[in-house]
């Protein structure tokens, strides 16, 4: 059911001359969840819309679904599911009407549509809202309807463009886990756009980090975090210290109070799970260290810094 996707030489230049994407190649395995991660304006949505069939790549670009060239196939014939940040639910249909829409336009018999809609309602825990107007739902419920609507016709690939960005932090975490469970159980090829690195880490099989219309690095969350390809990736997926040539994450360091220590504590900020300590040395270099909230040194204290051993 789900497909492997290949992009070959896909670039996108807007009529005004803005280059949203430099020609790029991308391979997504069948059933994989790939997260497109990057700051606003780096071309994530454009790349997603090329795969969806909502935009045409510049001349020479190719989009392949399981080897079949779909570059010129319009979105209505690509069999892709889409989920938007703004939900984009049909206001003139109720919840069940929205979920069944993709089945109805395919001419599937009514009884079959009803059965499938019930199944979707149950899967997304929306059964009691089946006859609700969509504008009488909360943001989280709306996005679950959008999700159910997108997967009801069993698409070949699911495309999600910042689906959680309009929700508040608590709901975002809850729904993220639901989406994760859903993607795992369906085994569907999914491409998920976000600018939130925590979301990317939690959901992805692999992350494709993007920078100004180019792919900066593709790899697992661990790869990007521990072996970032460049400073941009390193900085985007977490805070970093530069020790000579090496990049070190703040939680990979440990402090030891010592009168001869070369570092002085500037500031210790309590962040809940840990305390972030900012240090400075005589040469004015700065260092961040994350540590448990146990024996936090006071500002002005002299400390030594060591790398934590492997846990």
């Amino acid at each position: 059911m789900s497909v492997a996707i290949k992009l070959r030489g896909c670039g996108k230049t807007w009529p005004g001359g803005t280059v949203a994407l430099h020609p790029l190649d991308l391979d997504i395995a069948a059933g994989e969840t790939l997260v497109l991660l990057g700051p606003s304006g780096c071309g994530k949505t454009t790349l997603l819309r090329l795969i969806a069939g909502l935009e045409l790549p510049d001349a020479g670009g190719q989009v392949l679904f399981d080897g079949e060239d779909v570059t010129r196939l319009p979105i209505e014939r690509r069999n892709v599911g889409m989920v938007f940040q703004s939900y984009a639910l049909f206001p003139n249909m109720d919840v069940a009407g929205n979920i069944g829409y993709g089945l109805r336009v395919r001419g599937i018999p009514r009884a079959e549509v009803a059965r499938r809609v019930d199944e979707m309602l149950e899967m997304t825990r929306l059964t009691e809202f089946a006859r609700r107007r969509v504008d009488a739902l909360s943001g989280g419920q709306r996005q679950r309807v959008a999700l159910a609507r997108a997967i009801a016709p069993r698409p070949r690939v699911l495309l999600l463009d910042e689906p959680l960005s309009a929700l508040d932090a608590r709901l975002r975490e809850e729904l993220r886990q639901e989406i994760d469970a859903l993607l795992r159980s369906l085994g569907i090829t999914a491409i998920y756009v976000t600018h939130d690195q925590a979301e990317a880490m939690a959901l992805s099989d692999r992350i494709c980090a993007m920078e100004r219309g180019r792919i900066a690095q593709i790899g697992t969350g661990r790869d990007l975090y521990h072996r970032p390809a460049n400073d941009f990736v390193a900085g985007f997926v977490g805070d970093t210290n530069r020790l000579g040539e090496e990049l070190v994450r703040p939680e990979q360091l440990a402090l030891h109070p010592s009168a001869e220590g070369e570092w002085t504590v500037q500031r210790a900020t309590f962040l809940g799970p840990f305390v972030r300590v900012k240090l400075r040395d005589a040469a004015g270099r700065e260092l961040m260290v994350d540590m448990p909230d146990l024996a936090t040194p006071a500002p002005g204290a002299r400390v030594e810094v060591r790398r934590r051993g492997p846990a």
Partner: protein
Amino acid sequence: MSDRLRAALLIAPALAVFGAFFLIPLGQLAVAGGAGGYTTILTEPRYLRSLGVTLLVAALTTAITLGIATAVGLFLARNRFPGRGTLLALLTLPLAFPGVVVGYLVIMLAGRQGLVSEISMALGGERIVFAYSLAGLLLGYVYFSIPRTLLTVIAAAEKLDPRLEEAARSLGASPLGVLRDVLLPGLSPALTAAGAICFATATGAFGTAFALASRIDVLPMVIYTEFTLQANLAVAAALSFLLGLATWAVLALARGASGGAAG
């Protein structure tokens, strides 16, 4: 209590104006018909026939105008191209034309010496003249109605969320399906409002029919004739009141129908 009193005091001037300039003349008009006027128009078939033709012309005008304005409006709302502004200005130019001028334009196009007539002759065919028929009248009314309807549709179409259309397409909807399930439902409040104005304007339109001296006896023309040529004030008043009543009834029915469908 004092809140209500204040609200009543605040609304009093509006009510006074409404009464003085709207209700009182309307009441006078209703009364001016007298028993005689109403008896005449209800017993002489040509008056009722004229009312029927008027409503038919208005309904056809509304249907054609909404069709054209929806297609053109959607196109103009979605596409940016050189000359778009000029085209829009050209399309909305007739807003400023009196009905009489629109009538002359129709004659220039489809009258005995009109463009269509000349071309059809030059091509060796029969002389085609339709300015004075139902087609000519409709052409004039539609021409007259398109600008304001078009502007309403464009404004509404620009507010539609393009993601809705993309979502429908991703689910497999054809362009026609998108129109039926997304665009028309989204535009329906605007289309209802614009259609109502179009219909009401067309039932009362006078200048175009007058200029065309059309073979179609629309009611405003009949009223004009009764009033100025026959000095038959009672019948003219009764007809006016009937026309207002009929238009109101049609619009109320249309609003009920579209409200039911949208709700």
